[in-house]
């Protein structure tokens, strides 16, 4: 077995040092009834690289990879071009096979990139401070609500109908078990909801997504002021982080906490994970924040260096009184984000965002003229909603048969709501060509005829 270095001679000599006759005797504390005397049944014996690769490659071959066909899927996960150097750098063993930087003298590399990550996240969201990442956008959203409950000492969250249903559902799961109240506004494809009517003096926070799940972009300045007037916090969720290269950031609109899905920068689609949750807030709330934080300090010779800090918020110190139970986060995905963002820089990030918006405008114009297709979103970034004259899920399945991944039917994420059955979310990114768009237009024409 290529991964196990001990030889039989080593094992014999080590057992002699320990003073036991066999490895089995080291397991003597295991109740006899629970000891397996032979390898687990059913699983084949060890296999070489070639055989394992064959088995798993066969599974991979049964999937249609998004890059091999015209693809327009979004709804919280976006296909962007990731520069080759990102994946090269994150596979350096010094990053890949290191762990949480508990010993700062030998993990300055990890600590420094996390400090850079925190700074980048704070900059793009327009906030004061960000943590070193959480699992994903949806879990970050739930953590933000629980943080708002701690800050305001209230226990009721109001969720916009434009919030990604997964973000809503993860928050609801946490609400059920952690014990707080959630008022979730109904799905809001037209962007007409009145969240202020749902706020009362028990409301800890209002959660809105921008761009919204259905695509609209909103100026949240007035909403922020109104929420603050009620003593609550405004949480802004960003499911497509590239939008922050073009839109006024939530921090400038008055957000108190910004959560985002960072997958778009540096990370592949990966069928939904691992992704990276971004979490940013105001300086005054930093001690209520969940997750790891890297801070600047000096070493014994007065040189600048980095350490994990404010850990008295965390579970390994505070145990049941911790701000969150999170331990492992998304370190390597955060590194990919940081490297990609560093490669883009100010110019590149803004250009990427403009390019995405331009592609989406082009696609919306192309589709809007088609018979049986109506663009619903009057404003959007790189994703918009169209209303079809047939159920969107059927249309999408038809398109898939023709080798086109044509979008995400709203009904997949909002099941059971007949009024939404004809709605399709369509995304265009920098990866989509004119030919892709033509293929979608033709495919839709056919599917709707």
């Amino acid at each position, binding site marked *: 077995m290529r991964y*196990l270095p*001990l030889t039989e001679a080593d094992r014999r000599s080590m057992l002699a040092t320990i003073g036991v006759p066999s490895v089995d005797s*080291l*397991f003597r504390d*295991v*109740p006899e009834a629970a*000891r*397996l005397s032979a390898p*687990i049944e059913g*699983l*084949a014996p060890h296999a070489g690289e070639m055989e*394992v690769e064959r088995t798993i490659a066969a599974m*991979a071959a*049964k*999937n*249609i*990879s998004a890059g091999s066909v015209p693809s327009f899927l979004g709804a*919280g996960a976006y*296909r962007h071009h990731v520069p080759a150097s990102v994946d090269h*750098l994150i596979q350096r*063993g010094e*990053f890949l096979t*290191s762990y*949480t930087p*508990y010993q700062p*003298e030998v993990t*300055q590399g*990890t600590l*420094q990139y996390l*400090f850079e990550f925190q700074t980048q996240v704070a900059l793009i969201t327009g906030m004061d*401070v960000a943590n070193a990442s959480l*699992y994903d956008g*949806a879990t970050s959203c739930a953590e933000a609500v629980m943080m708002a409950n701690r800050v305001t000492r209230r226990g009721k969250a109001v969720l916009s109908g434009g919030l990604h249903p997964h973000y809503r559902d993860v928050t609801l*799961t946490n609400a059920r078990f952690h014990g707080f109240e959630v008022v979730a506004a109904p799905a809001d494809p037209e962007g007409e909801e009145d969240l202020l009517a749902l706020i009362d003096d028990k409301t800890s926070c209002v959660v809105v997504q921008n761009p919204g799940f259905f695509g609209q972009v*909103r*100026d949240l300045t007035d909403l922020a002021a109104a929420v603050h007037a009620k003593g609550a916090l405004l949480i802004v969720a960003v499911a497509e982080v590239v939008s922050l290269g073009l839109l006024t950031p939530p921090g*400038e609109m008055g957000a108190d906490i910004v959560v985002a899905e960072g997958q778009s920068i540096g990370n592949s689609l990966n*069928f939904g*994970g*691992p992704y*990276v949750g971004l979490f940013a807030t105001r300086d005054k709330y930093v001690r209520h924040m969940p997750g790891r934080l890297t*801070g600047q*300090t000096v*070493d014994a*010779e007065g040189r600048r260096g980095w350490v994990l*800090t404010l850990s008295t918020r965390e579970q*390994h110190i505070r145990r049941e009184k911790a701000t969150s139970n999170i*331990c*492992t986060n998304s*370190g390597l995905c955060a*590194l990919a984000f940081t490297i990609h963002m*560093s*490669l*883009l*820089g100010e110019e590149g990030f803004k*250009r990427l965002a403009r390019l995405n*918006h331009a592609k989406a405008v*082009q696609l919306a114009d192309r589709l809007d003229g088609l018979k049986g297709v109506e663009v619903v979103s009057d404003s959007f970034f790189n994703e918009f909603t169209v209303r079809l004259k047939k159920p969107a899920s059927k249309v999408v399945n038809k398109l898939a048969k023709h080798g086109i991944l044509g979008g*995400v039917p709203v009904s997949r*994420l909002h099941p059971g709501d007949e009024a939404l059955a004809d709605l399709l979310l369509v995304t265009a990114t920098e990866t989509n060509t004119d030919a892709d768009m033509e293929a979608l237009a033709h495919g839709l024409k056919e599917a709707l005829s």
Partner: protein
Amino acid sequence: MNTQGRKTHIDTLGVEGGNAASAAAGTISGNRALMLEEPLIFEQDSPGTTGVDLPEPPTFKPRLGKVRERGTIGLPGLSEPEVIRHYTRLSQKNFAIDSGLYPLGSCTMKHNPRLNEKLARLPGLSDIHPMQPERTVQGALELIDTLAHWLKTLTGMPAVAMSPAAGAHGELCGMAAIRAAIEDRDGSTSHRRRVLVPESAHGTNPATAAACGFTVDAIPADATGRVDLEALKAKLGDDVAAIMLTNPNTCGLFERDIIEIADAVHKAGAFFYCDGANFNAIVGRVRPADLGIDAMHINLHKTFSTPHGGGGPGSGPVVLSEALAKFVPLPYVVHGEDGFSLVESGEDDQANGKEFGRLKGFHGQMGMFVRALAYILSHGADGLRQVASDAVLNANYVMASLKDVMTASFEGPCMHEALFDDRFLKGTGVTTLDFAKAMIDEGYHPMTMYFPLVVHGAFLIEPTETESKQSLDAFIRVMRGLAERARSGDAEHFLGAPRMTPRRRLDETGAARKPVLRWVPEVSQAEAAE
């Protein structure tokens, strides 16, 4: 494991131990050959430069409604070679499994096979969107289902929830399942809200119990480092929802009474949550189902070797007993006549109606699933059994080779990790922390220190099965040498360590007192000072 919040010994570092290394180097740059000083990316800004060539967007009319386009963000501009050099240099300041023995107890820092990296990057697995039609991702669903099958087989459990994103997230899943099952059985007003957690538990256990709306009640350890069975029985009652027990426990010991504990817990109408962080010690040799557990998370980044990545991403599937099998999070994969499909909502025809909700976005840590499956298939039934055997053998070898110079906390044999405390340092003026820092200069990542909390100044050493005997012998020689050095009165050597690292001891107290959590441009800093 936790080392934060410990007082550092910075104040005690005199000039003698202090500037020696840098002063001796005497370089103009501050560099020391391969050890290069590297500023922040923000301090290398060439405005207007970018490392990504993107086409200029065509002229078009934006559709941003009332939202203004943003102004300056403040991101630095660098070319590709500059970015590559920057992150390469940062990587060189890290200790990693690839470079040496990383005996961080309870974290299972074993070798990460590169085949697994290669396979996770196959476009058919990495470049698929989670919302693609199910017909277009049958292979991905098959892979999740296959991994689920092996996790169930290896644990003997009938069900597994695949979506949790890490160990602590798996705990949340398991405890949510327990609460959902109790409410289903006893009604939603059930007063079973007390969870018993041993004092030696990982901090995530009590934090998770609290996050699920339970109260935490600590159970003491007995003199052998295990749960005190009588104390546990005395605490059981009709308000107890569950016990959360790590097995092998955080002292590196197998809980001998585990079957009796499970029986007592079940008899009291409560559930048994097992923290599976240490599954590496028993994989292929013991099936947790045979111990009577109801739920256990498996850290794929520990036992199944998905890379730790500087702190994630992890993955924490949770195996469940028959009693909990229906109380799962959404979504999950099912296999019907038509192939594989996902149950994504309680309204799905295939849903069982008892699902407790969603834990994260989309379907789980697919990238980690690929690596874990490759690991399982590579090892096979014989290899996995050998993993546990060698992990336990290596730890006992370290224990046997050090127990005459260090103080083992409990009688052996241990499982996959060896626990020592700081009694052997008594009167030397050297603490566990100082000892750890001296290990760094010797080329080792320190073990987990000051955890578990049940012994004083803990050294928790987990060598894992991927260390050779030669590697262990070298480590043992260093540990023995350091122990002798400490006892010989050379405290100064330890108090000044590490001396040869990119940075010496860092001021953690100062970092927490006045937190600087991001870079700010010098202009803003100057403005702030005025």
